[in-house]
């Protein structure tokens, strides 16, 4: 599964951080970002650095590159590269190490490439400056490297500007750029976060093969435990600037010995469970704000195993729990690690009522672009229906039509007997608006920064006519804050005083202010950290169950979708590829696209293995969609002459489980499951 070390064993680590401390100078003094961090990375090893946003993982990478900016500086400890003190290297020598011996791959490939230079120009200068190659040799080397990162049409790419190629191609260019100088160490800072899942899967596969073939050492920084499992042999878990657990991926992920790591796993959905059988457990509270560090264990205030007087007395040291596995916890020997995490109460599967929302042949055209093409599905009362797809699949267009922000070109949407597909929100009655509410994607954008939380919820109540008298409106605001488990004094706060998760809770409160019958949630979790995601997910499930609301959950994250939804609609380039109940969609027969999507989801849980299905290329542009089946350009099962010419037929495998595909029925039925439970 992981990249095994096949390089020469050596006693000196290629990279070593010893008690590294980094601070940023702020207006209020120094704020520590990394505290006494130690790491040793052996030759040819791939080491994962995981943690939630703000834990200091990217700062470490920038410190290794000696690029902390004006405000940041190393205040203690050492960084050794092949035994040399990196912090003492200056001038030309530093320049040779940067991009020569150590190369970096960045989170946002588009922003990392110079917009006014050709790709070729930006690539060839690496061998030209590091090895003094001439332009011709450098270009030849670059072309070979583009081939190596599996880039088709390398010659054209060389002449292109960054904005002319897709996000996946841009990231391949950045990887090629890093590899051009044959570095001994690669730093990867969330290299796939900005990409779609199926594109991500390709890049991850490439990274894995690089470390296997070239024996390059890698430091892989990610918030995604699944990606680390797929790419690394060892892992360091970070929390609030500190390493809290380190060990091999197998031992840490299977037998974690730090309450934080355990909390992270408990807040992630697993393939075998859903909201009814095993609810997610979130980590209570939030990470301490930078600069305010609790005494003793920094995870103490959020830890379920916290013992006052012991955990908060002095800094907890790293202690070995097994060979090569250490944890920064005092109670490693006392906690029953194998026991199921805190028994959260599951709920009975709710019964569904009649059809709440019915969509028939819904189509939206923007000139030549068909954003939604004959969508047909329905949602029942109290049901969670997930709409799944990658960027450009038309899921957000559908949400905008449903909310009345734009109008459909043809087809219908029926809500409680009312036709909505061409009824703009301005002409909808307060009742209709109240019964159809939305939760938006970006928590940092969903609340108006200029008004208090309370006044924004109150505005909804007043506008939708839920209550009319001021004291009763106020009362309802407080009730709603209770409902989303926020303290009542948050009513007086402004959005900037809230964390992302808290903002999203307010957004939930706002959506449920008028007892809606249908709530559309457009990627409400994608911008949140894992531990916070769990809390918001549980909140949604809980409220929905209590109020009997229909939830349309729009997402690209299949693991959350599997956990949360009762039924799934899979979309690709404006069309529905497959729909059915959750367990039907997640088991064969699959639509080839569904299969690829499932296989692309990184999986952290060691109890499962998955089959490799790789798609080639990127999603075609919606303005020039492929003829026939929209997926035909990337489909591994493509039948030439059929798939690329004729629209696929709908095949029904169970009541409501429909797949739009040309493959013969037997072929679809014979598909193997993507996931497999491994017996350990």
């Amino acid at each position: 599964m992981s990249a095994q070390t096949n390089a020469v064993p050596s006693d000196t680590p290629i990279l070593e951080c010893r008690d590294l401390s980094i601070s940023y100078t702020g207006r209020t003094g120094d704020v520590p970002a990394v505290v006494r961090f130690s790491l040793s990375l052996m030759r040819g090893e791939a080491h994962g650095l995981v943690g939630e946003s703000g834990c200091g993982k990217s700062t470490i990478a920038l410190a290794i590159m000696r690029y902390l900016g004006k405000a940041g500086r190393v205040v203690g400890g050492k960084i050794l590269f092949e035994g040399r003190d990196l912090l003492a290297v200056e001038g030309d020598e530093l320049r040779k190490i940067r991009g020569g011996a150590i190369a970096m791959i960045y989170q946002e490939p588009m922003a990392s490439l110079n917009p006014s230079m050709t790709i070729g120009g930006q690539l060839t200068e690496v061998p030209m400056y590091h090895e003094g190659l001439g332009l011709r040799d450098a270009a030849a080397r670059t072309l070979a490297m583009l081939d190596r990162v599996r880039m088709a049409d390398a010659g054209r790419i060389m002449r292109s500007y960054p904005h002319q190629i897709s996000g996946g191609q841009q990231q391949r260019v950045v990887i090629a750029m890093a590899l051009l100088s044959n570095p001994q160490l690669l730093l990867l800072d969330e290299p796939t976060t900005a990409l779609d899942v199926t594109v991500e899967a390709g890049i991850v596969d490439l990274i894995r093969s690089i470390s296997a073939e070239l024996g390059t050492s890698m430091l892989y920084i990610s918030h995604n435990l699944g990606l680390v499992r797929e790419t690394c042999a060892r892992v360091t878990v970070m929390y609030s600037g500190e390493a809290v657990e380190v060990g091999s991926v197998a031992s840490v992920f299977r037998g974690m010995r730090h309450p934080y790591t355990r909390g992270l796993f408990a807040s992630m959905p697993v393939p075998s469970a859903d909201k009814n059988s095993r609810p997610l457990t979130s980590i209570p509270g939030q990470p301490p704000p930078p600069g305010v560090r609790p005494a003793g264990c920094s995870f103490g205030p959020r830890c379920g195993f916290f013992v006052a007087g012991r955990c908060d007395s002095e800094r907890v040291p790293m202690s070995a729990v097994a060979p090569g596995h250490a944890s920064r916890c005092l109670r490693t020997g006392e906690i029953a690690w194998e026991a199921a995490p805190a028994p959260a109460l599951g709920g009975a599967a709710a019964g569904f009522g009649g059809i709440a929302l019915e969509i028939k042949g819904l189509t939206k055209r923007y000139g030549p672009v068909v954003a939604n093409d004959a969508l047909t599905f329905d949602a029942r009362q109290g049901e969670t229906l997930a709409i799944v797809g990658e960027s450009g699949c038309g899921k957000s267009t559908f949400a905008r039509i449903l909310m009345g922000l734009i109008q459909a070109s043809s087809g219908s949407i029926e809500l409680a007997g009312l036709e909505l597909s061409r009824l703009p929100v301005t002409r909808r009655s307060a009742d209709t608006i109240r019964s159809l509410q939305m939760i938006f994607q970006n928590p940092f954008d969903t609340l108006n920064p200029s008004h208090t939380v309370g006044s924004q919820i109150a505005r909804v109540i007043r506008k939708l006519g839920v209550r009319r008298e001021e004291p009763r409106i106020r009362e309802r605001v407080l009730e709603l804050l209770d409902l989303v488990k926020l303290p009542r004094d948050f009513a007086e706060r402004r959005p900037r005083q809230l964390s992302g998760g808290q903002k999203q809770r307010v957004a939930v409160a706002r959506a449920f202010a008028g007892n809606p019958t249908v709530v559309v949630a457009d990627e409400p979790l994608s911008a949140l950290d894992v531990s916070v995601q769990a809390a918001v997910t549980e909140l949604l499930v809980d409220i929905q169950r209590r109020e009997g609301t229909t939830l349309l959950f729009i997402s690209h994250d299949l693991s959350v979708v599997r956990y949360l939804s009762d039924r799934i609609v899979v979309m690709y380039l404006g069309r529905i590829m497959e729909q059915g109940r959750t367990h039907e969609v997640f088991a064969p027969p699959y639509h080839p696209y569904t299969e690829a999507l499932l296989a692309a989801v990184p999986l952290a849980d060691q109890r499962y293995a998955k089959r490799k299905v790789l798609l080639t290329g990127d999603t075609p542009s919606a303005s020039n969609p492929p003829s026939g089946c929209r997926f035909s350009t990337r489909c591994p099962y493509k039948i030439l002459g059929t798939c690329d010419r004729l629209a696929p037929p709908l095949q029904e495998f169970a009541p409501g489980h429909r797949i739009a595909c040309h493959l013969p029925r037997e072929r679809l039925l014979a598909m193997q499951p993507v996931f497999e439970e491994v017996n350990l």
Partner: protein
Amino acid sequence: MGNLIGRRAAQMLLIMLTVSLLLFAIFDSDQFREKAAVAELGGFGVATLSDADYHAWLEKKGLNEPFFARYAGWLTSVLHGDLGRSMEKDIAVSTLLKGSLANTAALAFFVFLGLIPVSLTLGVLAGMNEGSRLDRVISFVAVFTTSIPQIATAVLLTVILSLGLGWVPAKSAMTDGWSFRELVLPLLTLLLYDIGYLVRMTRAAMTDVMASQYIRTAILKGLPYRRVILQHALRNALIVPVTLIFLELNGLLSQVVVVEVFFQYAGFGRMLFDAANFGDIQVVQAATLVAVCVAVSSQLLSDAAYIFLNPRVRFA
């Protein structure tokens, strides 16, 4: 690229047409027509002009024709270079304009000659090292020179360089023929403000670029600092300043009014000011038209430069 520029050109043409219509409508109003009649017939005021005389005059001038017919006629003659006659000086407006525009163009030439190298260099130097001592000094001086209005700069420069030190003459009327010494004060006045402005803009563009992720990429690729700046940073940082240099032409037409009047330099601004004071309608009308024409062309050039310099737009 050609397509984009063509579209901008069409927009500009539409704007020019609207402006010309606007100007024609304004100066075609009764108020100005009477003024013109009085001036031409040598009356001492509207009161002395009898209704009959006035109407006869209108008839003779063809001013009773429908509005759009007259507009079309006017536009045709404008396009043929006939901009009317100056009432004050009794010469063709085009002759008057040619002379004054040439003088202003000479002034503008020297302004750009100083402006471009000085401000781009200083702006890039300041923006390259944000927060450094050099940056602080350059930025502070730039805030200072842009804060002093040109009228005050003109005063201070005159007092110091001319009245105090006696290095250059205080006025630039050039009564004894063209002299560069007389041009120094208006030139410096214009330069001080414009350099400050362009330095600030260049610095802002440069600091943005230096903070960008692609510069980080370039540095962490191990490129020499010179190459990072010259090859990676400048290409992006200079896009905005270059477009602003073209737009400066428009600003200059505005700034020269005060400066030329103060130093009595016989340029475009001075001519416009004189004509406005005297009520020389046809000159005001023609001067405005020409000014707008220059301004619109400079906008078009600026847009074209932006499109040309920015691959993201060029190959969109």
